[in-house]
């Protein structure tokens, strides 16, 4: 909201430069966004929070400054002299819906001469960036800026029967507003109507037909209080807002309705030659009862953490118009009618803090000591991240949103369609990603586009999908390896080993969306599927324009965290030396490693400690349809040094079993 430094000083003395005033206002709760020269004056743009509608005007701000500095507030005169002999018929005014319009004041002014405003008035409006139009419109804008009460002036001759009816719109009614557009009205909307049809969307915008023009001589001046919630709803439904609706939404001052009507009438009389015809006509509900609240000074001290002197507090409350009654700790207050933000004790506590100055409340960092540890989930996450970093995987942070075109963002965990997001304007133009992997592929693509090799990536973040119809999220680990399937599998194996889960983990071949058929597995711990892993499919690679090997895995971190065993316990290790034997086994292509390993284990004694695959060879020296699988066997006993013959025996059994069961022969 814009205010002007000189204009303010008509209502309160300010011994501050514009810059000093800006700092003062910022520290009082009205952040200054900018200070600009505006003609003769200085325009200060302040941010008024939605709870302080009373400060959406010059006098409101002046009043606040008066309370905070102690300077007196100077209010302009609003005395008016109605002309009882004008001959003009009195205004017929009916308010049909008193809940939506509890107060309406109409004034008729005759003899008005529409002309450009005097230069002082133009200057005032320009100092707050309002374009002058003509004297009557300018006066209504001036009074709006001055006291925050929106006013509207109708040309009375353009109102059928010169009457005003405040009612709900009827089904099918419409209006051409002063912005030239036609608006369809519904019965939840309040309109100002004449005897026949709507002439204004109440509180939001006047109609074009009854607008003030150069030939206007008789006007009806409207000043009213409209129900804030209703104005807000109508404004949103019509997508139509104005300086007026902005203030009505936040609630105007009851007293201000009358004050502004008189003030504007007086100015129209002074400037536009208008004569006030008769008394103001009013309709509506009875005035609201004054709001009272009680407060305890001790409560303010307790919440703020400072010692407050009762007399100081009471003095400020009196200055601010709260009419404090009571003694000692407890006081009863009457909330000034324009302070719609103050309803209970805690609101007064905030006022006290503001009067005192937030920077005058000292800080206290003495807190009771409390033992707190990083929780298990965080510990596990840190372990996992450290491990991946040490393997050379870099951490990415990707957006939770999925682009429209990337339908491959579907979840690996659910077959239901992606979750769509509706923006405030009603459009659906974003979705939530169902998987981390496309986001990581996208990062690879961006970097390749810049000819950068980003290497291997990981991220721990949420994926979103529908589960049994309900929107759900799941924290997952996404991993992308440029070393292909074995690279990604290696990372997953390290993860499982780190968390003590290797024992129960299995990799089950399964076709998974987004991975090459026959090149993917589901990762399970016991009966629970905790992830998927595979070579990225060709069409995904083409879509992301990724060349070269790439494999990925997505792991359910929530499941893994709940199953993880991270407590480390030492076990004495064997000091006896191991004996290693390498085997190069020629087998049919269709024989898989798991079969070889199982076969070896089955015939091996306890002191076979490790079977480690290290090479796969196909080529000239190997018969067609066969491959050579090389692995090493490590034998070690925890009780003694093994004798060579024991190992030789074991090897004999292994070689025999491999031949019998798998048709494998030693490579020569």
């Amino acid at each position, binding site marked *: 909201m814009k205010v002007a430094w000189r204009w303010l000083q008509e209502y309160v003395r300010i011994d501050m430069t514009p810059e000093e005033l800006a700092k003062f206002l910022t520290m009082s709760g009205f952040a200054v966004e900018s200070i600009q020269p505006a003609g003769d004056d200085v325009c200060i743009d302040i941010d008024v929070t939605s709870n302080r509608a009373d400060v959406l005007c010059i006098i409101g701000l002046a009043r606040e400054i008066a309370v905070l500095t102690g300077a007196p507030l100077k209010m302009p005169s609003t005395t008016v002299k109605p002309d009882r002999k004008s001959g003009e018929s009195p205004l017929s005014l009916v308010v049909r819906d008193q809940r939506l319009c509890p107060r309406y004041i109409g004034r008729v002014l005759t003899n008005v001469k529409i002309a450009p405003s005097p230069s002082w008035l133009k200057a005032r409006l320009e100092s707050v960036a309002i374009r002058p139009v003509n004297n009557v419109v300018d006066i209504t804008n001036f009074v709006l800026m001055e006291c925050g009460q929106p006013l509207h002036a109708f040309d009375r001759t353009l109102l059928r029967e010169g009457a005003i009816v405040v009612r709900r719109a009827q089904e099918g009614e419409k209006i051409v507003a002063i912005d030239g557009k036609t608006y369809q009205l519904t019965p939840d909307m309040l309109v100002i109507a004449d005897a026949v049809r709507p002439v204004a969307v109440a509180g939001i915008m006047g109609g074009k037909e009854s607008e003030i023009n150069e030939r206007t001589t008789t006007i009806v001046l409207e000043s009213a209080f409209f129900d804030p919630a209703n104005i807000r709803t109508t404004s949103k439904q019509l997508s139509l807002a104005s300086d007026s609706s902005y203030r009505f939404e936040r609630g105007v001052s009851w007293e201000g309705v009358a004050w502004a009507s008189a003030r504007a009438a007086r100015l129209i009389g002074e400037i536009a030659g208008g004569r006030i015809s008769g008394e103001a006509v009013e309709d509506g509900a009875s005035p609201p009862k004054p709001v009272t609240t009680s407060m305890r000074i001790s409560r303010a001290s307790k919440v703020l953490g400072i010692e407050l002197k009762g007399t100081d507090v009471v003095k400020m409350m009196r200055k601010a118009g709260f009419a404090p009654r009571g003694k000692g700790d407890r006081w009863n207050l009457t909330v000034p009618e324009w302070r719609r933000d103050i309803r209970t004790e805690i609101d007064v506590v905030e006022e006290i803090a503001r009067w005192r100055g937030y920077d005058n409340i000292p800080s206290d960092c003495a807190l009771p000591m409390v033992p707190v*540890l990083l929780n298990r989930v965080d510990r596990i996450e840190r372990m996992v991240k450290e491990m991946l970093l040490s393997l050379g995987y870099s951490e990415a942070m990707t957006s939770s949103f999925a682009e429209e075109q990337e339908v491959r963002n579907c979840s690996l965990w659910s077959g239901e369609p992606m979750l769509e*997001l509706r923006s405030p304007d009603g459009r659906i133009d974003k979705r939530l990603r169902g998987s981390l992997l496309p986001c990581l592929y996208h990062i690879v693509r961006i970097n390749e586009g810049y000819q950068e090799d980003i290497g291997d990536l990981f991220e721990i973040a949420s994926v979103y999908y529908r589960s049994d119809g309900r929107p759900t999220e799941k924290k997952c680990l996404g991993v992308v390896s440029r070393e292909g399937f074995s690279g990604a599998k290696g990372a997953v194996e390290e993860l499982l080993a780190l968390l003590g889960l290797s024992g129960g983990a299995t990799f089950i071949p399964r076709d998974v969306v987004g991975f090459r058929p026959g090149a993917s597995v589901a990762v399970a711990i016991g009966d629970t599927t905790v992830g998927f892993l595979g070579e990225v499919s060709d069409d995904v690679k083409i879509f992301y324009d990724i060349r070269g090997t790439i494999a990925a895995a997505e792991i359910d971190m929530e499941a893994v965290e709940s199953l993880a065993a991270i407590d480390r316990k030492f076990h004495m290790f064997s000091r006896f030396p191991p004996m290693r034997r390498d085997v190069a086994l020629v087998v049919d292509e269709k024989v898989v490693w798991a079969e070889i390993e199982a076969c070896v284990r089955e015939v091996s004694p306890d002191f076979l400690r490790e079977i480690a695959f290290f090479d796969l060879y196909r080529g000239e020296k190997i018969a067609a349809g066969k491959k050579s699988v090389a692995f090493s066997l490590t034998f070690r006993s925890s009780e003694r040094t093994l004798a060579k013959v024991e190992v030789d025996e074991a090897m004999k059994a292994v070689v025999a079993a491999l031949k019998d069961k798998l048709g494998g022969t030693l490579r020569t």
Partner: protein
Amino acid sequence: MDIVSSVNGARERARAEIQACATKERLEEIRVAYVGRKGLIRDLFTQLGQVDPAEKGQAGALINGLKDELAALIDARARSLATSTPTKTTSSLDLTLPGRRRRRGRRHPLYQTLDEMKDIFLQLGFEIVYGPEIETEFNNFEALNIPLNHPSRDAFDTFYVEKGILLRSHTSPVQIRTMMARKPPLRIVAPGRVFRPDTPDAGHSPMFTQMEGLMVGEEITFAHLKGVLEVFFQKTFGEGTKMRLRPSFFPFTEPSAEMDISCVICGGKGCSACKVSGWMEIGGAGMVHPKVFENVGYDPEQYTGFAFGLGVDRIAMLKYGITDIRLLTENHLRFLSQF
């Protein structure tokens, strides 16, 4: 030929040759000649076939014994050669060549900053808790004293997933969940992603990360709020960092405040980064509104508390001097490799 004398003869010759050997290459030649696949020992084994069956066992043992002995001698010689002769490489080592660097995985600066923030609050006794990103309208608004049809709603535009379910626009709903699940006193921080339909630019993104703080007890005051925040900012931005609270409005706190810190670029003197004011906005805070306590079943007479919300992206950007929030989700190598 007599195996025994062959073995003894071989032993004598080998010993002499090994003793006389002066280079690794020569030692390798010796090894191949005696213990290699086509070496002398193998020959001797082959000759075993012609030996009398009764003596085969003894002869075999002799040959094996020789094999082990030679292997040990060669080993010992190899060790003494290595320690006594400085290794003369055929090509000299260029000491100025860059080292072979392994590819180091990089931490993302936002998650790094978040971990540092968590650690600071852990030291102050705050527990870390988490809440869902997909939230109920109730937890995001009504429970926090934000009525649904009210101008104060305008500051909290959101994405809706379906009726009554949205993406949280701040981390404050975790206050509600935590207070509904436990009794006071409590001291928690709750970090996580939040979503607002903001137009993206260098300073705004529709998705960002916040950290909520909440402390509730019988004697918690506004002064404590100030104290905790001051400690946090000094630890994050340096000892000389100043913080101020100035009045503002949030429906879920009363008194409410905006937090500013002294500009991290100019130290408070005034520059373009802080719009000459010397201060930078960093988040919101205040004393928990009694209505919020009522909504979660805490007695507002007995308990008071403070809450604050910090923008993690903003803090990361100020710490590292990152100029555009969109860089955080682009993950360009030349960005990540700086951290």
